[in-house]
């Protein structure tokens, strides 16, 4: 199952990317940029009612 976990920028404290873990364990760090198609898929995943893991504090 694909999972997502947010990352915070260390200086601003803002969410800056989201890590996706694929079924095979491969991890992708996705920027929160609308023209990135991986981010578009993430937004669809969220729109489908899913919630990512929060970023580490």
């Amino acid at each position: 199952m694909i999972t997502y976990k947010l990352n915070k920028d260390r200086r601003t404290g803002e969410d800056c990317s989201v890590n996706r873990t694929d079924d095979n364990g491969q991890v992708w760090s996705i920027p929160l940029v609308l023209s990135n198609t991986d981010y578009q898929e993430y937004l669809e995943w969220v729109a489908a009612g899913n919630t990512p893991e929060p970023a580490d504090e």
Partner: protein
Amino acid sequence: MALTKIQPNIIAVANNVTNKTVGNTTSIPSFTFDGAGVVTSASNVAISGAGITANTVANSAFQTGSVENYLNAQGLDFGMRNRIINGTMIVDQRNAGANVVISSNAPYTVDRWRAQVSQHNGTMNVRQDSTSTAGFTKSLRAIVTTANTSLPATSVTRIWTNIEGLNVADLGFGTANAKPVTLSFWVRSSNTGTFSGALTNYDEVRSYPFEYTISTANTFEKKTITIPGDTSGNWSSNTDGSFALNFNLGSGTTQLGTANAWTGSWKVGSTGSFSLAGVLNATWYVTGVQLEEGSIPTSFEYRQYGTELALCHRYFLRYGGTGNYEFINFTTLIATGSGTAYGCVQNPVQMRTVPTYSASNLRVVDENAAYTVTSISGSGAVYGNNYGTEVAFNVSSGLTQYRPYFVQINNGTSTSHYLYMSAEL
């Protein structure tokens, strides 16, 4: 007296020469010779038989721009005619020729080309292959590993490539000025019959199914198909996807439509076309794919490998796999604690957008030690753009705060040693 030769001095004095017979046997059309030296024929002049002897037409016979003007009038551009990237299937950064299993997924195979099996339980393997035809060294091969002869109506089996809007904006699709395009490709299959594909928009609401016939099994054949420009629909002219070129390998009835006509829904092939997905061990190869402006196919536009690779890098880049320790673009890191070091990974070309990163078998090093990278995270939304992104490289422990480090890819040759950057469509 029979006229056997027109001398220059005759041209100089004659105003009109009409319907003259040369040597009693050959009729020539009407010509007008004016005082400025311009010769005009009353109709087209056909040159047959031996034609013009090689090298007998002087370069000076062609006025500057005459050839260029002709090609422009025909819609035949010059360099960079081909809107397809990696049409020769020569670049395979992700898989280096290894098979990619296609089973309810849609992964990338060679660069810029994806394969998909959707909504049915068939499978196929797709890879870069050395089976090719004259003028090419590689092809993309699909082989059916689990056949399905009862495809659900909405199922899809295809190989396709998406084209960025910036690279086709001049074609005017979606406007009244849409221009025709011509698709050329070399294809081979273990099976003969009428195959199909479709040019669609990226939004998958406009489609032009096309057909091609494979006449002889296991033999490369060149196909050319002219597609009228689509004056309807949304066709991006920016960095988003605009065109999608699909080769259908077996899809359900809902996904197939009437050939040679634009339709307002998503189709990947034509109704009644051959379904490769239904034949176990059936093979299909393609190479030399070209999509160009105009209705006249031109010869395949070969690009130097470095150019083709750089074009691919706009969408995907892989570091690693050379068998040596590879510094990632000479990136220097600064440790912010014992478990994390940050650095900016610069892209070798301007990518389409801020890329997604993935890494395997990386290590952070200084002059004394190496620390295995356990994970990475890009800070793309804050410190990233098309040129580079600040990336955090995480290790279990051992780094010294504020100390500089390098990041390397381990010295493996397998596909499991990499840093990926993906800005795909």
